[in-house]
């Protein structure tokens, strides 16, 4: 067998569409992340899905005793059943945002990992896709972990709830794509802090912890414009088995987010990775 050299491998893609951005090796970036993951304290990394579970126990079962049942559309459900999907959507958002903002920012400006990758025959799109794919894989494992814990507790009444797993990956994809696009415009840690600031109201007001109907109509319109509200509604619809056309609308919101995010990320790739 003849072993291909780096030059031969790179030349094979020459002339293809986008060959200056993409070398077709996003998996080598994932391979790097997997190697790093193996040599880290991977149990700690994997335990990420514990956080929403803790929230669920505290609010669902602890505070839930003082709340009793909650009425959603025509269903009367326990408070724990109400917040479980909210917490799943929220943790999908948090993980994706962390990976696509702090993590990318750090690898770009502090450890200069991306400079190393881009000194090779990889293109910027390989790096972006590899990083997003890795974040989504992690999100998928967290979602499976969460569902595996809450389903046996009877908090996912419908079999449609299985679809909450891919739905939370969709949500994570939307936030990761937007997050990476935003990171391309950011140059300092203070600006990074502002991202967290913007996420807090979304976390608190998107209907994860209570129905947004407690707020006046005008505030509700504002909340309904926010992505996390659509994430919560999508997953809640699935876990409760309330399947209707509105779920497609919620999912569509994220499809648009992904498209927009990827468009800007690609457009800003040179700024992101080759400044």
């Amino acid at each position, binding site marked *: 067998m003849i072993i291909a050299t780096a030059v031969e491998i790179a030349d094979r893609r020459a002339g293809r569409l986008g060959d200056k951005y993409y070398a077709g090796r996003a998996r080598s970036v994932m391979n790097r992340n997997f190697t790093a993951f193996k040599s*880290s*304290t991977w149990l*700690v*990394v994997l*335990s*990420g899905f*514990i*956080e929403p579970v*803790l*929230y669920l*126990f*505290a*609010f669902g079962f*602890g*505070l839930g*005793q*003082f*709340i*009793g049942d*909650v009425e959603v559309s025509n269903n009367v459900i326990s*408070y724990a059943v109400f917040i479980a999907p909210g917490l799943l959507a929220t943790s999908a958002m948090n993980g994706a945002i962390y990976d696509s903002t702090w993590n990318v920012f750090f690898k770009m400006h502090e450890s200069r990992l991306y400079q190393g990758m881009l000194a090779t025959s990889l293109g910027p799109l390989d790096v972006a896709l590899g990083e997003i794919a890795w974040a989504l894989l992690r999100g998928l494992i967290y979602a499976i972990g969460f569902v595996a814990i809450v389903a046996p507790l009877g908090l996912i009444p419908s079999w449609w709830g299985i679809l909450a797993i891919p739905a939370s990956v969709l949500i994570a994809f939307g936030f990761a794509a937007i997050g990476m696009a935003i990171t391309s415009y950011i140059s300092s840690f*203070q600006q990074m*802090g*502002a991202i967290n*600031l913007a996420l*807090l*109201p979304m976390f*608190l*007001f998107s209907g994860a*912890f*209570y129905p947004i109907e*407690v*707020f006046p109509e005008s505030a509700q319109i504002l909340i309904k414009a926010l992505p996390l509200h659509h994430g919560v509604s999508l997953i809640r619809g699935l876990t409760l088995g309330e399947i209707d056309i509105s779920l497609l609308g919620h999912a569509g919101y994220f499809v648009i987010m992904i498209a927009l995010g990827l468009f800007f990320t690609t457009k800003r790739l040179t700024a992101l990775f080759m400044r």
Partner: protein
Amino acid sequence: MSITTEPKVVKPYGALYVAEYRIRNMMRFKALIVMVSIGNPFLYLLSIGVGVGALIDSNNLIDGVPYLTFLAPALLANAAIAGGMDETVFPTLHGFKWGKIFFGINSTPITGSQIAIGVFLAAMARVVFLVTIYWIVLYLFGALETSYSWLAIPTAIFAGACFAAMMLALAAKMENDNLFFTFISRFVIMPLFLFSGTFFPLSAMPIYLQWIGWISPLWHATELGRFLTYGREISNQMLFLHVAFLSVILIVGLFFAVRYYTRRLAK
């Protein structure tokens, strides 16, 4: 011209010089700090206090008071804790590892224990600031019932001081693993935050989980806060116990903070 630096002069004020440097550093982010200090209580009270509070049946007052009133002292103490941790963990990691600033400071007559105390004092300055603002927001939301509710400010600061001292020690002790802090925040800080009688009374948990509250400075400070802001009934013995517990944590924390700082600088 000659400038003499008298070690005798530096000695009593060393910690203050370090605190001054830390506070100057914070001032660079003052806009952000002020915004977060005001925004946080506002958002939390509106969301959890009003939003979740609306779900709680009005006959079903928690601890005999509206949910917002019940929650207020816990959020106050928690804000102090979060602020105290922020201003100790990162400066310590930065000072020892990322920027190695402490080694520079230590090459002057300032000692390791003065650096530790200085960082602690600066963190406390931030905590005092944010707790005061938090209290004002609580007041505006009508979440405080007694005329002496301002006394909950010092008890919240007390809790912040306990956590700041413990984190100072831990961060100085940890030399390598950044994941350690992920671990700590996931398996220690977060459970303490959620299960210390913060969002619902400790008694609503099974007895075999209530120990989480007993070992948590947040619970002890929150109990004191509830006593002060809405007159929750607590026996004198328990009041004494809460204060004693917090005092012990604070003293032990500071003791180890000073010790680990000095050791690490001597390495």
